[in-house]
């Protein structure tokens, strides 16, 4: 979903396509910020006040997420500041520590107020409850984050390896990260699970979205992967179709929000 952007002397601003009042079904200030950072020339950036603006605590540190998914470097004395309005879903990159006047950014997609409210409640309930959802250890979330969010891959005897592996067939350890996959891939197959067929961690949101779509894709360098489809309200996947990827919220559990890449139909 393309972000809406505007610039002024003091900052570059961005919101989701839904405008300043909503970040979308699986978006938040962080997902908008990542898209904004990816669209600007990389530099160094300070993020302290931005982290405080997030509704929920991410399961992995925000600086790690930014550095895994963009070419920006997070630094306490960074050249720029990443900032977010606390009253709207507008984020900014600025050389100033404070934004005095947050702009009104136009929406390019209409907001279904009923769905927006229901999804916000679902996220709240999901993250506050101790769900019967997938258990992936916190350390594993941390270790896999560069691969999961940034498509960092390994290389083993000229073969690109992703998702990451530990040992090869010769029993040798494969080096952690050596390259990054393209942010685009081709659909080999896809499915749409009905709400009742979706995993339990999506059980509150799946009915509101009419199910959950998943694509199995192949990257041009060889690896394959599975991703949930985002923003597919008006389109249906097809085999051989191209997709790109964006960081979105995946699920909430035990007061933490987990992020991952989702596929968008091109």
């Amino acid at each position, binding site marked *: 979903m393309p972000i809406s952007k505007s610039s002024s002397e003091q900052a570059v601003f961005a919101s989701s396509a839904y405008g300043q009042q909503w970040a979308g079904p699986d978006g938040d200030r962080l997902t908008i910020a990542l898209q904004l950072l990816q669209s600007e020339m990389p530099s160094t950036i300070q993020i302290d006040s931005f982290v405080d603006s997030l509704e929920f605590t991410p399961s992995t540190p925000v600086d790690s997420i930014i550095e895994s998914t963009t070419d920006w470097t997070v630094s306490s004395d960074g050249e720029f500041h990443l900032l977010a309005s606390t009253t709207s879903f507008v984020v900014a990159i600025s050389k100033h520590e404070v934004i005095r006047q947050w702009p009104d950014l136009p929406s390019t997609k209409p907001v279904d107020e009923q769905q927006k409210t229901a999804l916000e409640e679902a996220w709240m309930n999901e993250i506050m409850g101790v769900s019967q959802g997938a258990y992936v250890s916190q350390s594993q979330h941390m270790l896999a984050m560069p691969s999961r969010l940034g498509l960092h891959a390994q290389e083993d005897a000229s073969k690109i390896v992703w998702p990451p592996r530990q040992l090869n067939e010769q029993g040798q350890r494969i080096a952690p990260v050596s390259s990054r996959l393209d942010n685009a891939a081709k659909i080999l197959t*896809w*499915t749409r*699970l*009905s709400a009742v*067929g*979706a*995993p339990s961690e999506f059980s509150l949101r799946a009915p509101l979205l009419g199910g959950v779509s998943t694509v*199995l894709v192949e990257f041009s360098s060889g690896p394959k*992967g*599975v991703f949930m489809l985002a923003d597919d309200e008006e389109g249906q996947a097809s085999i051989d179709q191209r997709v790109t990827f964006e960081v979105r919220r995946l699920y909430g559990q035990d007061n933490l929000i987990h992020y991952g890449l989702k596929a968008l139909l091109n």
Partner: protein
Amino acid sequence: MVDVAMVGAGQTKFGNHPLGLKGMWSEAVEKAFSSVDNDCSPSMVEEAFIGSIAFGGSQLGNTAALLTEHSGMDGVSVRRVENACASSGFALRDAWMTIKSGQADIVVAGGIEKMNDLSAERKRYWLGVSGDTEWERLAGLTFPGTYALTARRYFHEFESTHDDLVHVSVKNHMHGFDNEVAHLRKDVSFEKANSGAMVADPLTLYDCCPTSDGASAVILVADHLAHQFTDTPIWVKGSGAGSDKLALHDRPSLTQLRATQLASQKAYSIANVQPNQIDLAEVHDCFTIAEVLATEDLGFAGRGEGGRFARDGLGRRNEGDVTINASGGLKSKGHPLGATGTGQAVEVFKQLRHQVESTRQVRDAEVGLTHNVGGSGATCAVHIFGRER
């Protein structure tokens, strides 16, 4: 080397079972021992292998010791075997290897699962624990989704459509209709099976097996004891197992199960049997597309011909060279995860001894095969049985 014979086999009815773990297991063991023609008792068992996922977390630790305690096998060397839906297929293989290696002469293999007294939410959690949690599940997949990905790709690669899967569903419901231990005993028309509610596009409700409660157990003995217990032992002629990448996307092919191919090649080789010698095969049709793949990977149909095999009715009872899922398969007989593999062996045991309901009997059944898959194909155990040693 020692040959292995199956001299007893029993199971509960699969479905919504009123009993708990102890009760179901005891019933399966009781039926297995009472099926032995001559005196045989649980106290004679030297080793036991019990397959279970411990669905719902019920007695997750030391499951097997609790079950043998309640089935007259007090003191026996026992362990739980866990390989997802292939748990008791591997329990059977472990039992076979134990006798083959000379470590024991009388061994019980079995399986159990209690699935239907959980809340819908807990059930959905447990149904997803055997896939690749980190990558597949976080992409929204449970097994209906994974097999749906396979089905759509299969249709794309070969001349096959969802109609072929409907034929699988109709056949297995027809086979299971007269099976008194089957979970879903209802004849289903093509039109009905073709109009099920969508679960994971393109798979509908009629492409998916039910979640069942159940337990099953078989008694294996070394060759020198076989005729002490029965005049008609069923010989475990071959056993093979294999594994593959846990996640579908990590496999070279999306439309073949390498684990099945590896397991069946080993089993055929040990048994010195060819696919065209198999009279009946109980294959792991957790979803209808899985049966289509199995007919190819087990060598009953050529690559890409599994859809046509189903369309032409070649797996129907007594209509082709091999009867596929005479019991009704997982689709109709039911799928109590850990109990499924040895449940398949119970069916083959009875079919080869001509002891099933007359309407279900596979004519002149001499050689049978069981095919038990874990998850979307990460593990597989194949066994070949015969009336002749």
